[in-house]
């Protein structure tokens, strides 16, 4: 009786897993996926937008659409007998401790098979370690600190480009402008005192030195300041050929307003997205930002090259009442990439989903992004997440770089 041979164990395990898979198919069971975003506090707006984007993505997975996107065609996940994914949202309020606790709760209580998050790089830092310890994949859609993928984590994946890749794209654009005979000698850095601003400016400073640009003004400012007058005055005095700001929405609005008030028209702005590609920014100061160039992971005008964009945007707009932007498009895509992996893993086991993620290969035209493809390196970074540069002209964004996906020539300089 006590002796159970190995074969028996193996067989019963196989039988059990078969029953499991059939149970999934029959009950139309749900695959729980955890989502952590800031749903209250200073960045609640980001979280609430993200919620709309991620729910749109879940819709694409769970219902049947004629879209050339991963898992869109059939309802649910074919690899799991049509099981549907169910998003479970948690609020981390921008606090790494809370993000970690919520990740733990989602894993242990809700038995999520993977977690998507988190906007704040600091929260991704802790939540991804928790996922690592539980052997659950962590997919970040939008945390862009370059340090994140350099920690040797096995279960960490990042679909988006990180700040280094973004800044390199910006400098390649500047180099191209130079080659075309435009005078670009001096740069101005203007960045907030957060992880995002610090990472962004560190890379930009390094690239500027390497590529022979002179940084004539280098301003680190406190985010959410009541006033930026003194800071703008310094930029105005230095008057760089190109201003490279890294700010979120609130400070981006204040920056543009203050520059306008001080009668300063910057020659060119090439922004590190964030606030500068937000709808609230253009509603508030769009008239002052004509000609502003921002790095981006998304542009609506790419619909010619990425046919799914328009339809997906409609779906998102029906929920959120606004167009997809840099953040929401990436969040949406992250869920699709994850769903594709679960589908191929044919399992809800963390390790198997992780292996499936590691072998992901989705060509760019099957995404809504300008990326070449989705393919993760050994460190979990999607190396082909090429950013684009978009310019705000005529009340909308136009892709101007790289040439392969550009829709128009950049308007340069922004102000003479």
């Amino acid at each position, binding site marked *: 009786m006590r002796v159970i041979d190995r074969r028996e164990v193996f067989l019963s395990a196989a039988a059990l897993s078969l029953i499991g898979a059939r149970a999934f198919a029959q009950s139309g069971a749900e695959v729980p996926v955890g989502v952590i975003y800031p749903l209250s506090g*200073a960045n*609640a707006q980001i979280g609430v937008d993200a919620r709309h984007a991620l729910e749109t993505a879940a819709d694409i997975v769970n219902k049947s659409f004629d879209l050339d996107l991963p898992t869109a065609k059939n309802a649910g996940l074919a690899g799991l007998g049509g099981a549907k994914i169910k998003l479970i949202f948690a609020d981390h309020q921008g606090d790494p401790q809370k993000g970690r606790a919520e990740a733990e709760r989602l894993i242990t209580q809700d038995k999520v098979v993977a977690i998507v998050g988190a906007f704040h790089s600091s929260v991704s830092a802790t939540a991804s370690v928790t996922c690592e310890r539980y052997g659950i994949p962590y997919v970040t859609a939008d945390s862009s600190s370059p340090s994140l993928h350099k920690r040797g984590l096995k279960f960490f994946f990042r679909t988006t480009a990180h700040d280094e890749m973004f800044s390199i794209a910006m400098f390649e654009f500047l180099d191209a402008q130079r080659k075309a005979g435009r005078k670009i000698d001096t740069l101005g850095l203007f960045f907030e005192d957060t992880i995002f601003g610090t990472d962004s400016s560190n890379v930009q400073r390094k690239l500027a030195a390497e590529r022979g640009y002179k940084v004539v003004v280098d301003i680190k400012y*406190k985010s959410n300041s009541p006033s930026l007058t*003194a800071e703008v005055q310094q930029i105005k005095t230095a008057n760089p050929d190109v201003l490279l700001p890294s700010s979120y*929405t609130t400070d981006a609005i204040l920056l543009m307003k203050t520059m306008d008030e001080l009668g300063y028209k910057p020659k060119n702005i090439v922004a590190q997205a964030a606030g500068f590609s937000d709808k609230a920014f253009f509603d508030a100061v769009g008239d002052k930002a004509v000609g502003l160039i921002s790095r981006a992971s998304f542009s609506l005008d790419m619909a010619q090259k990425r046919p799914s964009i328009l339809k997906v945007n409609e779906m998102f707009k029906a929920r959120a009442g606004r167009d997809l932007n840099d953040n929401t498009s990436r969040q949406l895509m992250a869920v699709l990439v994850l769903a594709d992996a679960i589908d191929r893993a044919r399992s809800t086991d963390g390790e198997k989903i992780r292996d499936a993620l590691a072998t992901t290969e989705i060509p760019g035209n099957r995404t809504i992004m300008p990326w070449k493809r989705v393919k993760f390196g050994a460190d979990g970074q999607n190396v082909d997440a090429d950013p684009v540069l978009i310019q705000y002209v005529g009340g909308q964004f136009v892709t101007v770089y790289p040439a392969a996906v550009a829709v128009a020539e950049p308007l340069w300089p922004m102000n003479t």
Partner: protein
Amino acid sequence: MTSAQPFLQVLASGLAMGLIYALIAVGLSLIFGLMDVVNFAHGEFLMLAMYATFGLFFETALDPIVLAPLVVAIMFVLGISVYAGVVRYAMRAKTNPGMVQIFATFGLAILIQGLAQYFFTPDYRSIPNTWLGGKTLNLGGVFLPWPQIYGGAISLATFLGLYLLISRTDFGKALEATREDQGAVALVGIDRNRIFALGWGLGAALVGLAGAVLAIFYYIHPNVGGTFALVAYVTVALGGFGSIFGALVAGIIVGVVEALTTLILPPALKSVGIFTLYLGVLFIRPSGLLGRL
């Protein structure tokens, strides 16, 4: 452009911003002086006033300048309600009433933030196309935005009005008497509760006016109060708790020092200038510039 221009620019902007800080802070100082209560929901009052301005603008399409009296009236009522509904009860604490009031108003602050997120969504708002918005006065290379000139003027006018109110009216005398000696006023037939309620109404109305000014040139969202709250507390403590003119002087100092600090230190550290000055003043004068102990 001369070399003095950037300096003058920073100075002028700091002065304008300082007057607005003073206007934000004076309501807090008034309430404190009257009844020893630090209102931790002061920033949230400011946020509500900005939303009120935004909402009224949206509904009526009138300019925020025209709407300011209406916002002030709304905030006056709100201030009285908060006193009657919250603060009055918090004052009953036998041990350490100060802390209990901090606690109660802290809860109120979170409640208001939650309500703002619930009703207004966390989106960033700003008021487009106002009379003054985006218009700038150019004084020989020194630029002063009209919304901030307007804010500074409103601030000065308000302080003049407050001076007259306190020195010339019966209400002002009752206010002054109540803050001098809460027990004695009951003997001369002044209803302490009524004065406190009016004090809260007035305090909220003042920050309401500041909100109506800020809404013209600043973005609005449920957490915007925090941006100005700390500056307001420092301004009040620097000027001396309860001192109205202390708030004016301190507001101007804070605005100017904050701006000038950026000429010496990295802008990310500009608050360090104000904070250090504040501590320096406090260690020499423990009750602030114009405060009484």
